[in-house]
C-alpha cells in the first residue's frame, strides 16, 4: 500500500509536469509560427528581399525557438518543484490515513503551516481522536457486556441447578400418559366398533323391516319367496335356497327352489321329502345342527359335492329355518352356502328373516281368509245369480240367487238341465264358457226364457289378482219383472190405441156424414161448426198415432221389414197422397228425379211416414198461397241417395233451428200458421231415418223457405224382427 501511494504521489507530479510541458510546447510552436508569419508579412511589406527574408526568418526561428525551449524547461522544472512541495502535506495526510487503516488511531499529523492544510490536518487528527475514543468505548462496552453475560449465565446455571429435571420421574410420567392414551384409544376403537356394529344392526333391521314391508305387500306365496330370495341374495352368495310351504288346506305343498350359482344339477331334488322329514324331526326336538348335518348328507353326499358344486363336502354348510306362526308350522326354508361365506351375523339375519316370512305368510293367509269371506259373503248375498266355473269347466260356485233362478244346486247338480233348456233357445252356454276360460271373451245373452222366467245372462272370464285367468262366471239377471212391465206397457199402448181410437172413429164418421148433408141440410154456421169439429177430431187421431209411434220407436222394438223399393215410384205415390191437401192450400208440387236411382231395400211403411211428414210440413208451412214445393231425388255418391224437399214458405227461425227435431217442439211461427201440428212428426221421422243408418237435416231462411234433406244408404235398411210396426196415420 505504501508503495502504491508513493507511485501515486510521484505519479501526480510527473503527470502534471508532462502535461505542462506539452501544453507549453504546443503553445510555443503556435507563437513561433504565428510570429514568423507576421514577421514575414512585415518584412515583405517593408520590401525586404528573399535572402534577407530567409535570413531574418532563420535567425528569428532560432532565437524564438531557443527562448521558447528555455522557458519550457524552466517552467517544467519549476512546475515539478511546486508540485512536490504541495505534495508534502498530502504525504503526511497519506501516512496518517495509512496508520488509521492499520488500526493505529494514535498517530497525529504535525503541520507547521497555518493554512488550509492545517484545517484538514486538524480534522484528520480530530477524527483519529474520535475513533480512538469510540474504540475505547466499544471495548469498555464489550467488556461490560461480557461481565453481564457471565453474571447472568452463572445466575441461570444456579437456577437450572435448582430446577433440575429428574429424568427418570419424567419418563415414568410419560409412560403413564402413554398408557392412558393407549387405553383411551382402545376404548375409542371399541366404541367405534360397537358403533359400527350397531349401525350394521340398524341397517340389518332396516333391511329386514323393508323386507317385511315387501312381504306384507305380497299376498301370494310365490311373490313372497321371490322377495326373500332377492333379499338373501343381496348379502349372501348362497348356492341354493329352497322353500317348502304348506298351502292353506295343508293338502298341497308349495315348493320353490332358487339357485344362485350355476350347478350342474339341482341339488335340492327331493327337497320335499327332506323338508317334511325335517319338519317332523324338529318336532322330536333333535338338535338343529344334527338335523342340518343329516340334511346336508341327504342333499348331496360327499361325492356329489365335488362334481356338482366343485368343492369339498366340508366346504359347504346347510342352514335350515322353520316357519312357524301361532305354534303352527307353515313350512321351512333351507339354504346351502360355502362355509366361509357364512358367519354369526348372517345366521342372525337369516333367523330374523324366517320370523319375518312366517309373520308375512300368516298375515297373507289371514288376509286371504278375510277377503275370501268378505267376497264370499258378498257373492252369497247378491240378488244376481252367479255360477262360477273353474278352468276345467267344472262348477266351482253357485250362489243362492243362482240356485233360486236356475234350479242349479250349490254342488253343481242341475247345471246340465239348465244348459240344455238354454240350448233349446239357441243359447249355447258351454261355448260361451269355453270362450271365456280360454280366450277371455265376454259374452251377453239378452233374453233367455226358462219356465216363464226371463233372464239376461252375462258370461265373463274370471281372473285373480295376478291376472291369471282361472275360470268363468255366469251372471244371471232376472228380467222377468222388466219383461212384464214392458209387456204391460205394450198392452197399455195397444189398449190405449184401441180405446182412444174407438170414440174418435165414431165422432169422425158421424161428423163426416153430417157435413156431407147425408141426414139433412145445414145452414152456413152449422156447416162451419161441424167442419171445425171434424178438423179437431182429425187432429186427435193424428196425435194418437204419433204418440203410439213414439212409444214404439222409443222402446227400441220397432220392427223393420225392408223390401226392394223403387224410390222414384214410391215418392210419386207419397206425393199423390198429399196432393189433395196441396190443392186445398193451392200449393204446387214438382218432382224431379235425376239419373239412375238404384233399387233400395226399404221398409215402405216407415219411409212413407217420413216423407208424408216432410211433404205435409212443406205444404202446411208454405205461408202464402201459390207456393211451390220442389222435391228432388238423386244419387248422392256411391253409397247414398239424396232426397230433398224444398218449399218457399215461412222458414225456420235461426234461434230455434236446433230444436226442430225435438219431441213435441213446434216453432212459434209454425204454430201461428198451422195450429194442428203435434210436434212429433220430425222427431219420429228423424228416429226412423237414423235407425236406417241414414241422415236427415235441413237448411232454412226465415221468410224465404226451407229445404229438408234425407240421405239414405244404398245398402238399404236391415230387417229387424221387432214387435211393433208404426201406427199408420
Amino acid at each position, binding site marked *: 500500500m505504501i508503495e502504491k501511494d508513493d507511485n501515486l504521489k510521484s505519479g501526480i507530479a510527473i503527470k502534471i509536469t508532462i502535461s505542462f510541458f506539452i501544453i507549453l510546447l504546443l503553445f510555443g510552436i503556435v507563437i513561433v509560427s504565428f510570429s514568423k508569419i507576421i514577421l514575414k508579412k512585415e518584412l515583405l511589406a517593408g520590401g525586404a528581399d528573399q535572402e534577407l527574408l530567409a535570413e531574418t526568418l532563420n535567425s528569428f526561428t532560432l532565437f524564438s525557438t531557443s527562448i521558447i525551449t528555455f522557458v519550457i524547461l524552466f517552467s517544467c522544472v519549476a512546475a515539478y518543484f511546486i508540485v512536490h512541495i504541495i505534495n508534502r502535506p498530502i504525504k503526511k495526510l497519506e501516512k496518517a490515513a495509512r496508520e488509521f487503516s492499520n488500526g493505529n488511531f494514535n498517530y497525529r499529523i504535525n503541520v507547521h503551516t497555518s493554512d488550509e492544510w492545517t484545517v484538514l490536518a486538524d480534522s484528520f487528527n480530530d477524527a483519529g481522536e474520535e475513533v480512538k475514543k469510540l474504540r475505547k468505548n466499544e471495548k469498555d462496552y464489550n467488556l461490560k457486556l461480557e461481565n453481564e453475560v457471565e453474571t447472568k449465565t452463572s445466575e441461570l446455571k444456579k437456577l437450572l441447578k435448582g430446577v433440575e429435571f429428574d429424568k427418570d420421574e419424567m419418563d415414568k410420567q410419560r409412560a403413564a400418559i402413554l398408557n392412558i392414551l393407549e387405553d383411551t384409544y382402545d376404548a375409542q376403537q371399541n366404541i367405534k366398533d360397537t358403533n359400527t356394529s350397531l349401525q350394521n344392526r340398524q341397517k340389518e333391521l332396516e333391511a329386514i323391516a323393508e323386507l317385511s314391508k315387501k312381504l306384507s305387500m305380497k299376498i301370494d306365496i310365490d311373490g313372497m319367496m321371490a322377495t326373500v330370495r332377492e333379499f338373501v341374495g343381496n348379502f349372501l352368495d348362497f348356492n341354493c335356497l329352497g322353500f317348502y310351504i304348506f298351502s292353506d288346506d295343508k293338502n298341497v305343498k308349495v315348493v320353490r327352489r332358487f339357485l344362485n350359482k350355476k350347478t350342474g344339477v339341482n341339488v335340492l331334488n327331493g327337497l320335499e321329502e327332506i323338508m317334511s322329514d325335517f319338519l317332523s324331526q324338529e318336532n322330536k326336538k333333535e338338535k338343529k345342527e344334527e338335523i342340518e348335518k343329516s340334511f346336508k348328507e341327504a342333499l348331496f353326499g360327499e361325492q356329489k359335492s365335488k362334481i356338482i358344486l366343485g368343492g369339498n363336502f366340508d366346504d359347504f354348510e346347510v342352514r335350515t329355518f322353520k316357519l312357524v306362526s301361532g305354534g303352527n308350522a307353515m313350512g321351512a326354508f333351507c339354504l346351502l352356502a360355502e362355509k366361509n361365506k357364512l358367519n354369526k351375523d348372517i345366521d342372525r339375519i337369516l333367523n330374523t328373516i324366517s320370523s319375518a316370512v312366517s309373520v308375512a305368510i300368516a298375515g297373507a293367509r289371514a288376509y286371504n281368509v278375510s277377503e275370501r269371506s268378505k267376497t264370499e259373503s258378498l257373492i252369497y248375498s247378491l240378488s244376481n245369480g252367479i255360477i262360477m266355473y273353474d278352468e276345467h269347466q267344472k262348477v266351482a260356485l253357485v250362489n243362492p240367487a243362482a240356485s233360486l233362478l236356475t234350479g242349479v244346486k250349490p254342488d253343481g247338480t242341475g247345471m246340465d238341465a239348465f244348459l240344455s233348456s238354454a240350448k233349446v233357445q239357441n243359447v249355447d252356454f258351454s261355448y260361451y264358457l269355453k270362450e271365456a276360460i280360454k280366450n277371455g271373451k265376454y259374452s251377453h245373452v239378452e233374453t233367455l226364457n226358462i219356465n216363464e222366467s226371463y233372464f239376461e245372462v252375462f258370461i265373463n272370464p274370471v281372473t285373480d289378482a295376478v291376472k291369471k285367468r282361472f275360470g268363468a262366471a255366469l251372471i244371471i239377471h232376472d228380467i222377468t219383472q222388466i219383461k212384464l212391465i214392458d209387456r204391460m206397457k205394450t198392452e197399455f199402448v*195397444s189398449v190405449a*190405441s*184401441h180405446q182412444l*181410437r*174407438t*170414440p*174418435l*172413429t*165414431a165422432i*169422425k*164418421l*158421424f161428423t*163426416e*156424414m153430417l157435413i*156431407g148433408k*147425408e*141426414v139433412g141440410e145445414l145452414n152456413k154456421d152449422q156447416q162451419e161448426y161441424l167442419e171445425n169439429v171434424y178438423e179437431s177430431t182429425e187432429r186427435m*187421431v193424428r196425435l*194418437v*198415432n204419433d204418440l*203410439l209411434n213414439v212409444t214404439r220407436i222409443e222402446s227400441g222394438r220397432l*220392427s223393420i*221389414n225392408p223390401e226392394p223399393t223403387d224410390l222414384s215410384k214410391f215418392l210419386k205415390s207419397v206425393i199423390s197422397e198429399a196432393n189433395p191437401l196441396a190443392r186445398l192450400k193451392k200449393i204446387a208440387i214438382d218432382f224431379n228425379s235425376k239419373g239412375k236411382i238404384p233399387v233400395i231395400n226399404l221398409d215402405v*211403411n216407415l219411409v212413407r211416414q217420413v216423407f208424408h211428414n216432410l211433404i205435409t210440413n212443406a205444404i202446411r208451412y208454405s205461408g202464402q198461397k201459390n207456393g211451390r214445393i220442389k222435391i228432388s231425388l238423386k244419387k248422392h255418391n256411391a253409397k247414398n241417395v239424396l232426397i230433398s224437399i224444398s218449399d218457399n214458405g215461412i222458414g225456420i227461425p235461426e234461434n230455434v233451428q236446433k230444436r226442430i227435431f225435438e219431441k213435441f217442439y213446434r216453432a212459434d211461427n209454425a204454430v201461428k200458421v198451422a195450429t194442428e201440428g203435434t210436434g212429433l212428426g220430425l222427431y219420429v221421422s228423424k228416429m226412423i231415418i237414423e235407425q236406417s243408418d241414414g241422415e236427415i237435416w235441413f237448411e232454412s231462411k226465415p221468410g224465404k223457405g226451407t229445404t229438408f234433406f234425407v240421405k239414405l244408404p244404398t245398402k238399404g235398411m236391415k230387417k229387424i224382427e221387432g*214387435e*211393433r*210396426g*208404426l*201406427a*199408420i*196415420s
Partner: protein
Amino acid sequence: MGKAKVKIVLAEDDKFISKAYQDGLRRGNYEVIPAFNGIEAVEKIKAEKPDLILLDIIMPDKNGFEVLEEIKIIPELKNIPVIFLSNLGQETDIQKGRELGAVDYLIKSNFSMKEVISKISEYLK
C-alpha cells in the same frame, strides 16, 4: 123387383161406430147386417152368407181373427172378401190379418166413410 142389394155383415162391438157404418153403408145402397160380438158374427155370416164382411178385431166372446179362422174352414164362406176394420195398427196384426186371408186391413180412425165405401166397391168387383 130391383137387383138384390149387396149384403154386408158388419161385425163391430162399439154401438156408435156400428150405427155410423150402418147408416153410411145403407145410404150407399148396401144392406147391412150388424153383429156385436164374435159369436154373433159367425152366426150371422153363416146365416146370411153376405157378399162382403167388415170385421173388427177386438170384440167380446171371439175376436176378429178367430171369426175369420172359423169361416175360412167353411167352404161356402171362405171366399167371401173380408176387410178388417180395426183400430189396432200393428204391423203384426196386419200381417196376421193377411195371412188369415183378409183382402184388406183398414184402420178405422184413418179412413173416412167415403174411403171405406170406395174400398168396399173395389173388392166387390
